[in-house]
């Protein structure tokens, strides 16, 4: 697979997050979102993660968002368990250091709050680098957010010296031919199935010797997620092994999750909101 057009993988559905998502969103009636007879409303919130807060780990992010919700004084549902946890679900963990233009959480509310008001209250209670930008109620019967959002679109910059985009392309193609990627995460060996997770890439023509920019589409695999940084460093490793020059001068990466979506069984892509 070479230079797959992103559009061919995600035809016109996976789009960068827009500031004006409030306009034209589906208006789901609150009464269909009740749970076990009790009125429970499932509010989906889209937010960004950027600036230095890109370095928050997933657990740190969860704790931070929960505190934002409390500060916003939204009528969130409290679980019945020992820990009395807030009823909130998050989209799949971002790698530490990666920013995002489209993260989501689903918050269970015990009272209906106008989504615009909820968004305003959240916005005033959230650090700017995690600012929410859209909110809407969704059907409570949807699967858990983490499992439901199974497609992602990424923008990556590789920074360094003496970089060559054809070396990156060579590395990606070689990896795709091998169909899987093995790497160590801490003490654990992870095997990523590239046939099911590596959906496409497009290297920017404006790439230079100091910066290769490319876009990447990934699909979720519950066994192991494909992380852009892992893909890049594996491409670097195999290129070096094969004597392909042009990736040895990597200094740092900038990775941004641009959008997330749900791919249904029949291949349709559905926006989170």
């Amino acid at each position: 697979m070479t230079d797959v057009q992103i559009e061919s993988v995600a035809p016109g559905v996976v789009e960068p997050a827009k500031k004006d998502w409030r306009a034209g969103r589906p208006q789901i009636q609150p009464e269909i979102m009740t749970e076990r007879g009790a009125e429970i409303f499932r509010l989906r919130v889209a937010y960004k993660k950027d600036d230095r807060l890109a370095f928050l780990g997933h657990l740190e992010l969860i704790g931070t968002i929960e505190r934002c919700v409390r500060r916003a004084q939204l009528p969130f549902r409290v679980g019945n368990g020992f820990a009395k946890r807030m009823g909130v679900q998050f989209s799949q963990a971002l790698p530490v250091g990666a920013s995002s233009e489209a993260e989501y959480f689903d918050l269970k509310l015990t009272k209906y709050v106008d989504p615009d008001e909820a968004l305003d209250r959240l916005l005033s209670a959230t650090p700017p680098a995690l600012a929410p930008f859209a909110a809407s109620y969704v059907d409570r019967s949807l699967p858990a957010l983490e499992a439901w959002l199974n497609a992602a679109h990424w923008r990556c910059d590789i920074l360094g010296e003496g970089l060559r985009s054809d070396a990156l392309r060579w590395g990606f193609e070689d990896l795709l031919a091998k169909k899987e990627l093995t790497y160590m995460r801490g003490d654990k060996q992870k095997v990523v199935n590239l046939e099911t997770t590596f959906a496409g890439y497009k290297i920017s023509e404006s790439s230079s010797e100091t910066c290769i920019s490319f876009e990447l589409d990934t699909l979720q695999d519950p066994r192991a997620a494909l992380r852009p940084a892992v893909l890049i460093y594996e491409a670097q490793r195999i290129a070096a092994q094969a004597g392909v020059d042009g990736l040895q001068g990597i200094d740092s990466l900038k990775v941004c999750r641009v959008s997330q979506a749900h791919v249904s069984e029949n291949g349709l892509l559905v926006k989170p909101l």
Partner: protein
Amino acid sequence: MRVKRENLFRLIEPMLPHVEKPSRYLNHEWGAVEEQEGPFHVCMVYADVYEVGQPNLGIAILYNALNKAPHVSCERAYLPWVDMAALMRKRNVPLLSLEGAAPLASFDVVGFTLAHEMIATNIIETLDLAGIPLLAEERDEEDPLIFGGGPSVWNSEPVVPLFDAILLGDGEEALVEMCECVRTSKLEGVSRQEILQRLSEIQGVYVPSLYQIVHDNTSTRWGYAVPKEGSSAPSVVYKRCLPDLSVTDPVAQRIVPYTEIVQDRLALEIQRGCARGCRFCQAGMTYRPVRERPAQQIVQAGEEGLLKSGYDEVSLTSLSTTDHSQCGYILRRMNSDLRKRGVRISIPSQRMDAFGAEMADAVSTSRRGGLTFAPEAGSQRMRDVINKNVSEDDLESAARNAFENGWRRMKLYFMMGLPTETDEDIQAIPAVAKRILDIGREIGGKGVTVSVSVAVFVPKSYTPFQWVGQISREEAQRRQQLLLSSNHDRGLKIAYHDSGTSLVEGALSKMGRDGFDLIYRAWKNGCKFDAWTSEFNLDAWNAAAESLGFSLSDIATETFDIQAKLPWDHTSPGVSKGYLQREYRKAMDEVTTPDCTFTSCTGCAVCQTLKVDNVLMGVRS
């Protein structure tokens, strides 16, 4: 030349992908004060990693007080973990503040919390990483003034060569006065020496360079400090004491961290000081008198603090929370208001009686976790020696009450190596724990667990045991084995603290100004983060001591003459030496002293010396 003040986060950011927990270095937390223009800049430092230092209530209080003061801006800094420190040195990046990412060396004042003795090498590490001359005497007019303060100032001599001034006691007002003194003095263009002289005139401020150490036959081998000839510094510096806690902001912690910190909850200081009079407890002697905050203020502060912070837990902190005369009312009121919002209330210590268990019950959720009590000693004789006014009946009724209310896990804290301790006293520890376990099994069946944690006693300054020598490491290890072999119930879990750490802590608690050489050598040997089990290196400490002709064991185990002048006599929390001597003798006679907040004055002299009084909001019971 003064280091330039500029934001250098751009130097930190590229290192973040390569270090553990990058969230330690991010700043921009909710509630953090944005960098102010100043023009006078102060940086408060806790010389340990972010998650240990950020919950420190003292720094939070002072951060707020300084940022409220006109012309002053206060920022925070913590010691980077070893991976980040190594990278910073490699890339020649100095230690930066959090808020403004400015070099520490560019600040007017840098203030350190002396949280405990084992933080000493970290203070050196911090100054070194910041590029600030380590010794006060090496600093020139352009260098920041280095202040110290906090709970461990009561024998500050081993670290005073690092400091320009040490604040004794409460800092809310005093630190603001100190900074104002430096600011106006600098505007006047006076010399650093004159600034130090002026600082010494503020009550509670000890300027070490104005004192010299005298060794003679009236003192211990560490000597004693007297004002230098010609200096107008006081012969004894008494601590600063805030007479009324209710005038202070009850919500000190306005900053909500991103990362999990060691006490990850909203802390409300509901009272300051404790008059129980436990003879091993330095805080109990040095934070007197007792000052309660009014119940209504606490309840309101809890409500407001939780809304503004978003925390889901509030802790009512103090040295003895359940002693507050309105404790029952506060807990019941907060519990009824907050529980339905999924907010937990916690109290850091439970009183060892039925009331303590009742209060623990008042704050618990429907399912019980663990409950912690601190009998401190196993035998009644030993508890009388240390003035832990808890009887066997109190202990058993507290345990019975707790188990009957559904608690199934209990943790008990004890010490070993206390003065007059015998093998029978050690054997009494598992015996009393076994009785509690039996009560638990009788009520709760086989699922009940009782665990015991035993620390080695370290004698501290300004306690009735300040003259006592610590037991040797070998003896501590023997008693630890005796403790284990005296336990005949496999259901009872016994753990004890590392005696090596206690040895170094004991030595640093005894030494005078000469102790700095030991700390410096230890740091040169690679010692830092000594309070972390993973980082503590006893061999490096021993090597440092040997190179100076010291023996850590000899220093820690030395008994001082009760009449001798002590290395810390010139810095006083207001407790009289006569009272401490009387308490020592009563300890030897196994005679207890009551708590003056429950009975009448017991003559510690704090109120008379500092012209303050206990402030109680009701009758204690």
